[in-house]
């Protein structure tokens, strides 16, 4: 059956062709006519490769603990996908991306069973329960992160400092489940957003760009994330409209607030380059499954995330709101798709139908 689409419909097979092979003939073939080398597998593995520099950076900043946490999250995701998911879905690499992204939004000092559990929840309750890849409503990695945030609010907000040796553990990574972690000598540091919210201290722009601040593994280096995301956008594996719209909305809204009361609200550059906004905007919000399908929808989606991020950061009780903003807008995606449904060519528009 697989060769059927290559055979010109209406043309006799070549060996029985009565006419000269040079004779021009009209070929009628079934669609699709335009082929592309892109496939789910290729896109997913490209995203995995583009995440590798960020993983490497997190290891440089947070040492071997970073690698352990990411590996635990990946293991949780892969095991769940293999056990509960449909057959042969491990190869497409989507579970690997979920695991990597989940690992990248966790702090380095977590006991390893927590990232593992997060990976299990991310794939199990974020993806497989909806029927697997392409049918989930919420970004699986963020479902796992939100679950961990609700279940272990202390462990997930204990941020170790960056630096201090490659092989030094940044927390009790090997604590057993449900046991209290023995507190090792670890220097912890608040994230730039936490410093701002609870101690009213700002952070310079340069450390935010490079990434040697406190925070989750992958949320620290804004510059690297932009580079890796730029590569994906150039390959058209992510919709550039979503991150641009998120960052523009965040910048404009926080800039407006900053101009109204510069002492109370941080400047827009700080808002843009701190916390998980970069990783969220570039890698989480652009998930092809959980973002709107239309171009107008992508702009609306991004603007909604940006507005929610500013709302939660400026007036909320939490220092960081990117995860919640993306999850909330994920829930809005069916609506956005409905509002921005393009007019079918040849049919009267919405207005003229009246």
């Amino acid at each position: 059956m697989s060769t059927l689409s290559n055979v010109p419909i209406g043309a006799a097979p070549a060996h029985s062709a009565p006419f000269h092979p040079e004779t021009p003939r009209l070929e009628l073939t079934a669609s699709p006519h335009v082929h592309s080398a892109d496939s789910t597998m290729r896109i997913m593995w490209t995203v995995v490769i583009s995440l590798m520099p960020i993983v490497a950076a997190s290891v440089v900043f947070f040492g071997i603990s970073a690698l352990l946490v990411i590996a635990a999250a990946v293991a949780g995701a892969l095991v769940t996908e293999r056990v509960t998911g449909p057959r042969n879905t491990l190869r497409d690499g989507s579970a690997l991306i979920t695991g990597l992204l989940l690992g990248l939004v966790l702090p380095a000092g977590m006991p390893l069973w927590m990232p593992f559990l997060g990976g299990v929840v991310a794939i199990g309750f974020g993806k497989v329960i909806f029927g697997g890849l392409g049918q989930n409503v919420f970004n699986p990695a963020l479902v796992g992160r939100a679950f961990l945030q609700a279940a272990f609010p202390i462990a997930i907000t204990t941020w170790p400092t960056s630096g201090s040796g490659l092989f030094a553990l940044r927390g009790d990574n090997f604590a057993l489940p449900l046991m209290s972690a023995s507190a090792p000598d670890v220097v912890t540091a608040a994230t730039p957003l936490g410093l701002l919210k609870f101690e009213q201290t700002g952070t310079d722009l340069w450390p935010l760009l490079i990434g040697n601040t406190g925070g989750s593994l992958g949320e620290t280096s804004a510059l690297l994330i932009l580079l890796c995301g730029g590569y994906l956008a150039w390959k058209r594996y992510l919709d550039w409209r979503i991150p641009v719209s998120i960052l523009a909305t965040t910048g404009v809204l926080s800039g407006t607030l900053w101009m109204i009361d510069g002492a109370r609200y941080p400047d827009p550059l700080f808002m843009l380059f701190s916390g998980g906004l970069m990783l969220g905007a570039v890698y989480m919000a652009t998930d092809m499954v959980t973002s709107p399908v239309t171009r107008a929808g992508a702009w609306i989606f991004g603007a909604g995330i940006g507005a929610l991020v500013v709302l939660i950061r400026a007036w909320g009780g939490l220092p960081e709101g990117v995860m919640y903003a993306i999850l909330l807008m994920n829930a809005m995606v069916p609506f956005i798709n409905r509002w921005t449904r393009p007019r079918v060519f040849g049919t009267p528009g919405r207005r003229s139908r009246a």
Partner: protein
Amino acid sequence: MSDLFWILISAMVVNNFTLALFLGLCPFMGVSGRVATALRMGGANIFVLVLTAIAAWFLNRFILVDAPYLRIISFIVVIASLVQLVEMVVKKFSPTLFRELGIFLPLMTTNCAILGFAIFQTNRGYGLVQGLFFAIGAGLGLTLALVLMASIREQTELAIVPNLARGLGVVLIIAGTLSLAFMGFAGLFTS
């Protein structure tokens, strides 16, 4: 003014009756299959909540001062008669909607969101205007949760949900994830 605004926002998103306080789950599961139906159910909820706010304020102000032990039973009686009113109106004006809402319209009588609302209003000592804002906020919050759930359910209708989660199972998972997402609003406008 900002106080009233806070009451509205708080009841709508921060302490959303369905997604943060887990009240009124039966219509949330029952009539969230279609966006249009969910929207009208939300409308009916807002209407009943507003009337309840007025009735509860009246009861608290003039009657229950002397007999506070009658509070819950009198609330239930008032809510039941209000729901009867709504039911008659809906049945008369939109038989289709009446059939779509089915058992969940009379069940509003025992809807914990409505009773919970009346008790919250009493416990927080809201006046009439505050109570009205609280009612509209709570009603909008219920509508928001219902409509969000309905739009997601319409989309996942074609998903190949595993057998063990088909039906209410996946709805509960969606509800849980929505609730996790609404945790982001915690503490909004309090600091």
